[in-house]
């Protein structure tokens, strides 16, 4: 399986994402934001950071980077797309996920471990977790306060698109939302950083199963379970 880690000017979690994929022994490339072909990749990771300096709004400018047209195409093809932190903000700005991320209610940049509940363990990204399992994954953001209107929230609940919720809401997100997926389930965005929790040396390895979940989902759909 082949992973791409997108790199925008100002990305700063790209190396963490790259290392997380290495941790599960799969092949991974950095892909610069000007790329116009992602056909070689099965999963696209949109990493955290401050792309384009977060000017105007987080993710507002990145969404017009040439590579984003390819990300939209990959989403349509059913490829796996995981946006983390700034990556989540970019995916909402691009309209690949509903809602928006606002300034934290506390006005503070919050950087610490959080307890997340796996609300939906049936997505390709979370299948190796138990239903309602509690996992420890860190956050590091100033603008992770998820917002959507009532109607959208009802749709998210109805379609089981809320993937992760916070145990102790750190930012004021509506319905304690930490991560959501699209209706089809192949695009997911989350503020917490699973790539920073892939080894007990980091304090938690609870994030690693997101990456092994993706791998397992890909293997199932490619009938290559025997190839390691």
């Amino acid at each position, binding site marked *: 399986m082949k992973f791409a880690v997108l790199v925008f000017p100002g990305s700063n979690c790209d190396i963490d994402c790259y290392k997380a994929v290495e941790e599960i022994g799969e092949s991974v490339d950095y892909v610069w934001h000007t790329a116009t072909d992602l056909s070689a990749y099965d999963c696209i990771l949109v990493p955290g950071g401050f792309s384009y300096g977060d000017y*105007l*709004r987080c993710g*507002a*400018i990145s969404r*017009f980077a040439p590579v984003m047209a390819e990300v939209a195409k990959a989403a349509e093809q059913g490829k796996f797309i995981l946006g983390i932190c700034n990556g989540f903000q970019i995916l*909402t*700005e691009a309209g690949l996920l*509903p*809602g*928006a991320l*606002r*300034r*934290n*209610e*506390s*006005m503070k940049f919050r950087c610490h471990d959080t307890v997340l509940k796996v609300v939906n363990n049936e997505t390709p990204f979370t299948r190796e977790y138990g239903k309602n399992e509690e996992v420890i994954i860190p956050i590091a953001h100033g603008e992770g*306060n998820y*917002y*959507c*209107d009532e109607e959208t929230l009802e749709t998210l609940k109805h379609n089981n698109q809320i993937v992760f919720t916070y145990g102790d809401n750190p930012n*004021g997100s509506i319905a304690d939302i930490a991560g959501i997926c699209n209706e089809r389930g192949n695009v997911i965005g989350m503020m917490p950083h699973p790539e920073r929790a892939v080894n007990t040396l980091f304090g938690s390895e609870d994030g690693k199963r997101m990456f092994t979940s993706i791998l397992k989902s890909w293997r199932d759909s490619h009938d290559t379970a025997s190839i390691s």
Partner: protein
Amino acid sequence: MIKATVYVTVKKGVLDPQGVAVQGALQSIGFQEVESLRIGKYMELTLDTDDRAEAEERLKAMCEKLLANTVVEDYRYELEG
């Protein structure tokens, strides 16, 4: 040349944490009459056109596509010249 001014504000009903913090600061230094405060963005654009209708149409597109995120923000604009 047409000069355009764009104002982007947080939608009514959507929490504006910056506004709340600044309101609290004003109240704490004696401006108790501040009942509410919303923070927004002010942008000045100079457009290389004399066609007002076209300028307005394109400015609206700029607001919808980039300058405002209509999920959480409202915008309004003024044209001059």
